[in-house]
């Protein structure tokens, strides 16, 4: 389990231009249901069949259906053997004749689409925090802490935001990490003649530098400088 979970670089308009995600194991669980109806209640959330009620025997809330009878589900659809037309997961599981059925559930992950949504959401929260400030010359959100994670944000003079999300237990020197990230961005993205500003960063040197930086940050957990 690594402490650094996500990195986001958000441009001045609020769109995501770079993201990185720590590799954590995603829990998966196989369940065989012999009779209709199933013990868990599924609903379509963000184009996935998600457990919304009745968590039981390792199948937890927000888990989504990954495969049915070993045929992979994409979105809420999957192919039944020898059939041309894809079937809807929720409709399939409503029919008693399809039982017994083996369903593979997986723990929730954040898709790239959701990351884009989250970035623009954070961008607006950041701006609202400035407006609601009770005193003059406030910046936007710099730290957000919940019981599950800590979020640190650095906004540069040009309006680019660097966001790092760590586990709640970590005490990584996020300020240093963020300014080093800014340095890498300036060195390898901005100085790259093929990089156009405010566009997604696709740059090998940037990624290599970031990888080294993250390794060092992860190892120096708690240290002030690295």
């Amino acid at each position, binding site marked *: 389990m690594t402490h650094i979970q996500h990195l986001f670089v958000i441009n001045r308009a609020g769109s995501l231009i770079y993201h990185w995600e720590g590799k954590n194991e995603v829990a998966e669980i196989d369940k065989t249901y012999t009779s209709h109806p199933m013990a868990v209640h599924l609903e379509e959330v963000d184009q996935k069949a998600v457990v919304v009620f009745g968590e039981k025997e390792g199948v937890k809330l927000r888990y989504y259906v990954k495969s049915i009878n070993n045929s992979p589900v994409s979105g809420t659809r999957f192919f039944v053997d020898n059939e041309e037309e894809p079937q809807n997961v929720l409709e399939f599981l409503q029919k008693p004749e399809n039982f017994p059925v083996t369903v593979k559930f997986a723990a929730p992950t954040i898709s790239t689409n959701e990351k884009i949504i989250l970035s623009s959401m954070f961008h607006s929260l950041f701006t609202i925090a400035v407006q609601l400030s009770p005193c003059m010359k*406030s910046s936007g959100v710099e730290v957000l802490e919940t019981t599950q*994670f800590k979020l640190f944000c650095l906004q540069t003079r040009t309006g680019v935001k660097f966001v790092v999300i760590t586990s709640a237990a970590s005490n990584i020197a996020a300020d240093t990490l963020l300014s080093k990230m800014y340095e890498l961005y300036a060195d390898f993205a901005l100085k790259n003649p093929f990089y156009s500003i405010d566009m997604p960063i696709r740059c090998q040197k940037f990624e290599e530098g970031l990888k080294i930086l993250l390794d060092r940050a992860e190892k120096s957990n708690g240290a002030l400088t690295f």
Partner: protein
Amino acid sequence: MTIYNVYIFDREGQCLFYDEWFRTKQSGLSKIQEYKLVFGMMLSMKSFSERLATADSNQTVNFYKTSTYKMTFLESATGIKILINTDPNANGIRELLHKIYQAWTETANSAARLISSETEPDESFLKSRVKQIVTKHPCYV
């Protein structure tokens, strides 16, 4: 260290109580609009955090911090939400929020009793109690 202001909302988003002490900048909105914005931001922050965290246990948002202030959140099981703005380095704000919540439940209950006996509830009573609690806190001033 300073304590700037406090908001108490019911679960529908109605602002039940507001008071400020050392607030030097107003939001530039009418009070009602500001309450709506604060409540809306808090809800978005909650949904943002829920989407971002993929672990399965429940989570609550503790606080957010900017360069000049820190907003600490407390939500009771009944959906009452208390938000307080303080200096970013203030400590022991969670305990302060618990005390305010306690004062709130006590006075809100007695106010309800007063309404049932058809006398005007004394709103300034809660205000003075909250003020008392806040001024006692080491971070005040």
